[in-house]
């Protein structure tokens, strides 16, 4: 924003009355930058998130599961597309954002740096990871930036479907053979704490939270959302007949919430800073796909330019 007091007052009037900021509205430069960073990180998470699940497309154990998984991974590519497009309304290009991802200047959700070792991991990602994502994202449907809020409405509908299919895939395993049930428990054991860590550090250590709250980008604190996720998920684990790997998890009547053990935030910071099981693999895969596809994108651009030239000559 050019920074006139009038423009700033207009911006806060919209935010404070729970209205929506649209691309042509004046906005503080820091607000614009924060949104670009957050939307890009979200978009990057969608496309990197295609890898751990895509890992099982070729091996899905039935044709029905293969179709469901293909459709799900396709949805994620679609979410990436909406989110990059929404970020583009703030004056950055998708190419530029991908460049920032590929050169480690922007991040993606740390959860996708964990490996999918068995088929049950596909179910666990749907149930836990998508469940945590929805808990984080539903409030974003009321985010102060209009294009982001609208993209999130559609994304949340699809994520909610993904979460149910993940739960249903696990339920089928837990009602199956002893080996299938053990596979499901093992997946829960590995994905539980990384899923809790998806809500970020405790509020007292969170760097961006206060400003984002003031701007109507963030509505709830990390701790509150994490609690909400545990309260939603613990009874679902009972239905599945699986044990959440936390001996201290129990309902607290007085608080009206579950008590639970916090994830290892040191591990979260290690993974965020690049030292997770799959960080290098995920980025190498992404960069290789992009690099190997360069000649295709160049051809498409050259062809479009030739056509435009011919159309011009014919006109």
């Amino acid at each position, binding site marked *: 924003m050019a920074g006139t007091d009038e423009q700033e007052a207009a911006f806060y009037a919209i935010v404070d009355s729970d209205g929506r900021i649209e691309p042509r509205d004046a906005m503080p430069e820091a607000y614009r930058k924060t949104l670009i960073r957050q939307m890009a990180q979200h978009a990057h998470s969608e496309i990197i998130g295609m890898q751990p699940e895509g890992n099982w497309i070729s091996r899905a154990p039935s044709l029905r599961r*293969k179709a469901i998984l*293909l459709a799900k991974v*396709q949805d994620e590519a679609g979410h*990436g*597309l909406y989110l990059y497009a929404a970020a583009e309304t703030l004056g950055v290009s998708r190419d530029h954002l991908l460049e920032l991802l590929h050169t480690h200047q922007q991040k993606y959700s740390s959860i996708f740096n964990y490996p999918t070792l068995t088929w049950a991991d596909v179910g666990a990602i749907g149930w836990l990871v998508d469940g945590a994502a929805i808990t984080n994202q539903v409030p974003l449907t009321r985010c102060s930036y209009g294009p982001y809020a609208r993209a999130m409405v559609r994304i949340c509908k699809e994520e909610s479907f993904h979460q149910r299919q993940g739960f249903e895939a696990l339920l089928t395993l837990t009602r199956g*053979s002893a080996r299938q049930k053990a596979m499901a428990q093992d997946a829960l054991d590995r994905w539980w704490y990384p899923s809790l860590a998806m809500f970020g550090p405790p509020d007292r250590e969170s760097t961006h939270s206060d400003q984002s709250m003031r701007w109507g980008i963030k509505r709830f604190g990390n701790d509150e959302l994490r609690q909400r996720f545990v309260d939603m998920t613990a009874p679902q684990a009972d239905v599945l007949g699986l044990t959440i790997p936390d001996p201290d998890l129990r309902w607290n009547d007085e608080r009206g919430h579950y008590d639970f053990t916090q994830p290892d935030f040191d591990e979260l910071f290690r993974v965020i800073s690049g030292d997770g099981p799959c960080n290098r693999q995920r980025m190498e895969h992404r960069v290789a796909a992009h690099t*190997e596809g360069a*000649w*295709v994108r160049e051809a498409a651009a*050259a062809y479009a330019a030739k056509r435009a030239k011919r159309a011009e000559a014919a006109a």
Partner: protein
Amino acid sequence: MSEQSQLVEYALRLGDDALVLAQRLGEWVARAPELEEDVAMANVALDLLGQARALLTYAGEVEGAGRDEDALAYWRDDRDFRNALLVEAPGGDFAVTTARQLVFAAYQYELYERLRSSADQTLAAIAGKAVKEVHYHRDHATQWVLRLGDGTEESHRRMRAGLDTVWPYVDELFDADDLTAALSAGTAPIAVDPAELRDPWQAYVGAVLAEAGLEPPDDVPARRGGRQGLHTEHLGHLLAELQHLHRSHPGATW
């Protein structure tokens, strides 16, 4: 061969083509040249998988031995698969995949367009739904052949190489044999005679290649054998990956 087993065999040919190509296209997901193509590849793969499921389910029903789509997809060995060799070859680079998509979608379009009037109502219904999907697949492949053929020097070179890679597998698609002769005879045929698809296919593909500044490779020795279960070495690896988890848990429900 009884008419019943002929019908089973025919449905397996069509279904295996779709299943094996869906498996190959799925390999592109999360590694396509751009995000739109991740979506498109997954979409085409899903359509083909849907066709495969309908066709294998029907083959199992007609056979009447209690085999469902999964029994047929996961418990047959490569010698029992009936797909054409074209669909089992590795995807190669994006030009090889694009060349195969054009060849196959143009073939499948002509096939399903005619199979809609099959005397077999199930096949006619499957074809009626599939032809709309395949129309899109053919268009998608066409757009990419034009871009790559008439894009940069490199894309033109790669597109030519892609055509060279897939061309040996073209003739097999149009091979008629005793089975297709029996099922496509008479006034109310069940099957389409593959040989009659060749001319309309040629007309379509020839026009696209010409517009893209490409030529169909000539004098390429044809490779065939898929319809008899004589495959390339690639199919065994593809099936090993597709089948291993399912086979590791016999009798399990997923």
